[in-house]
């Protein structure tokens, strides 16, 4: 089910460079220098604060403010560790049909979603 869904999304979003950019961003965005090398600018400091607030508060209304889960699943590093960053970025931007997860692309750029995924996978955002 998951695999089908992801493969469908892959065909939908099959612009290779786009995917590569997400992958790189998610993998190495911890260091701004690496982000620059990957061609992705990490969000400006102010925007990072806004994104962090959004994750805790607005994502938090389903996933829990501490991201340990609610009606939606937990977004802790342990819960996300085996999930490819790329598919998580797609989930954030496009939502997951058949579930309560809405698309957030009207509020986030792909780079910002990639930054969020990286932060979540490293457990930066779930600290109070």
């Amino acid at each position, binding site marked *: 089910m998951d695999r089908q869904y992801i493969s469908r999304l892959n065909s939908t979003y099959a612009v290779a460079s786009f995917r590569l950019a997400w992958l790189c961003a998610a993998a190495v965005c911890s260091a701004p220098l690496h982000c620059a090398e990957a061609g992705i600018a990490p969000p400006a400091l102010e925007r990072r604060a806004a994104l962090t607030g959004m994750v805790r508060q607005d994502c938090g209304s389903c996933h829990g*403010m501490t991201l340990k889960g609610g009606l939606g699943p937990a977004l802790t590093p342990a819960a996300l560790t085996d999930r490819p960053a790329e598919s998580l970025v797609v989930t954030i931007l496009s939502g997951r049909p058949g579930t309560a997860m809405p698309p957030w692309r009207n509020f986030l750029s792909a780079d910002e979603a990639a930054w969020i995924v990286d932060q979540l996978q490293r457990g930066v955002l779930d600290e109070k």
Partner: protein
Amino acid sequence: MKNELGRVINAIVLCLGCLGCLGPGLPAARAEVGVVVERASGSVQLVDNDTRAALARITGLGDLSHASLVYSKDARHVFVFGRDGGLSKIDLLARKTVKRTLQAGNSIGGAISRDGRLVAVANYEPGGVKIFDAETLEQLAEIPSTYGSEGKRSKVVGIADASGSRFVFSLFDADEIWVADLSEPRAPRVRKFRNIGRQPYDALITQDGRHYIAGLFGEDGLALLDMNNLDGGVRRILGGYGQGEEKLPVYKMPHLRGWAMAGDLAFLPAIGRHEVLVVDRRDWRAVATIPVHGQPVFVMARPDGRQVWVNYAFPLNDTVEVIDVAALKLVKSLKPGKTVLHMEFTAPGDEVWISARDDNKLVVYDTKSFARLAEFPADSPSGIFFAWRARIMGL
């Protein structure tokens, strides 16, 4: 003579002093007292909506994001249900936590039995309901929400108190509604209703205790259980209510517990759409649709049923609108502050208190003139709960 006057003055001062000493302790059991959840700091504020005073702050209550609370029957205590599974009992007179237990890993809300003896908590992790002695917080029973053949446990939502020591709740993952009879608190008897509709996400019980209604996220319509006729089973109502053919993204689940019942009319938040639905309670037929500013979260009736107030989901959550019930249309739009999460009327309904989370404040409005009467600082405020709730079934 002078001495005598002095003695009289001294006596008066002494009396006033005594009143002063007693004063702060007195308001706690009155209907004018309220508790405000400060979601980010794990604290609650005790307020008085008559004198508009902040009376005290009680801290150390854990993760209060999506926290709710219920009052004891005498309104002396509140039971706070934290997201982290914390269950805290606060004495409003003593202004402190008197009992606290971490009863689960992830919790969504709770209820208190009609007789006030039992507190029930609905849990996501591990899924199920736990029953506690309201006096001691001793756990009396656990009802695991096990379903299907693999022994999985569902997240439990929409728990409400019903007549005769019963609690009713919905199983989000199992599409079931369960009614637990706690006549013998240590030996619950559970009646299960299956296939009630996909993904019940919240529910309410009407104030007369007659109807339990669950909202369905996975399909259109609502699940209705007549608590006076359980043999009649769950039936589906309002088939047209829901996301419809073209599903719209929902940025925050509507809350059903605040559903507005005004006379024979019920006002419901649409799911995803920018609408409030008006339904005739006698036959559950939709009678009107009112276009509004955003996706409604709380749709609440003023106690006299003449106004309905609505707040909205992200990103349109800086606005509150007022519907005139007689005219069935919007009559006022207000901007109380950033990220409005909840509204609570005073018992007579002359004022409404509104929490603006990202402005860290509570705003008080006159519901007749819509004048802004007062503001209070509060730390990321969410739910506001006034003590009149102690007398109302399902709150």
